[in-house]
């Protein structure tokens, strides 16, 4: 991500340090991860210590300090999905992709994340790929669509 793109995002918030979280969020959305160099740039431009930026970047699940795959798989481990077999689903997806939660496969195709409740409890256990619920489909079929 280049400086101009970062500047563009920071300028949207008039460079105000109190919007640090929103700024990191937009960078994450655009770049899909937060490279250390980018975090340093943000810290300098907002005049917020690098420590504070790191604190926030490591606290929230949404942020990633390592590159993410092209398609993010998100498996809900909330209690509604738990009682409907989320753990079985997770195991199946792990076997299919060969990666564990927090990892990205070697060709950068998929990242696997677990998290909880997107409020779609009636479809549980819920798997999202690229933000889309994969409903009424086996994990294998769903993954095939994104290969």
């Amino acid at each position, binding site marked *: 991500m280049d400086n101009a793109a970062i500047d563009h995002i920071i300028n949207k918030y008039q460079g105000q340090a109190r919007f640090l979280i929103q700024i990191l969020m937009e960078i994450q959305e655009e770049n899909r991860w937060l490279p250390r160099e980018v975090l340093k740039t943000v810290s300098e431009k907002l005049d917020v210590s690098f*420590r504070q930026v790191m*604190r926030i970047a*490591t*606290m929230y699940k949404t942020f990633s*300090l*390592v590159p993410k795959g092209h398609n993010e798989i998100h498996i809900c481990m909330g209690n509604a999905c738990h009682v409907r077999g989320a753990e079985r689903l997770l195991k199946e997806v792990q076997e299919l992709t060969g990666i564990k939660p927090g990892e990205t496969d070697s060709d950068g195709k998929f990242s696997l994340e677990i998290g909880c409740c997107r409020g779609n409890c009636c479809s549980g256990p819920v798997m999202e790929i690229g933000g889309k619920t994969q409903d009424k489909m086996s994990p294998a079929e769903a993954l095939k669509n994104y290969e």
Partner: protein
Amino acid sequence: MSKILIKIDGREFEASEGMTILQAAKEVGVEIPTLCYYEKLEPYGGCRLCTVEAEIRGRSKLVAACLYPVEKDLIVRTRTEKVDQIRKMLLELMLAHAPASRDLQAYAEEYGADKNRFQKESSFCIHCGLCVRYCAEIKKKEVITFVDRGTNREISFIPEIASQECENCKECFPLCPTEALQAAYVLTQALSFPSLQSVTE
């Protein structure tokens, strides 16, 4: 500053408005155990070892002495059975991480805490945050930070800044209530292998 009459462990004292229970107790020589407290730093309320019973208008509650401000007619009890039970358990929980800490051992003796009660997970760190806060509040260098969350929370030196600042400072080491060496160890590791420092590990 106006004076307020409070009672600590049955004795009446005058405290100044704006003081915390811990400050008031210290002034009159009543000992309250602490681990994350350091008078030069903002109170943090993390270790909870300074938990005491505070009674106000007939209602009693357990509060952290380092944070709770004195108020008129406050009655403080620093060594009730409940308070001692809480401190004992907190010490046992922390001893699972830093069984060799002298500070912890001394308190453990006083409160009858068993250092082997819980499954050991020797991380040495009890997350008092003294190093993190000292570096930020006093030294204004912000070299050390907490990373991650929940039970994965850790302290981490930021190598890029540490390599420039820490060599001539190291003032945080003696503040560490567990092992001063731990801070040094993490720091050395950060300086020697900056590329291995993944903050999400």
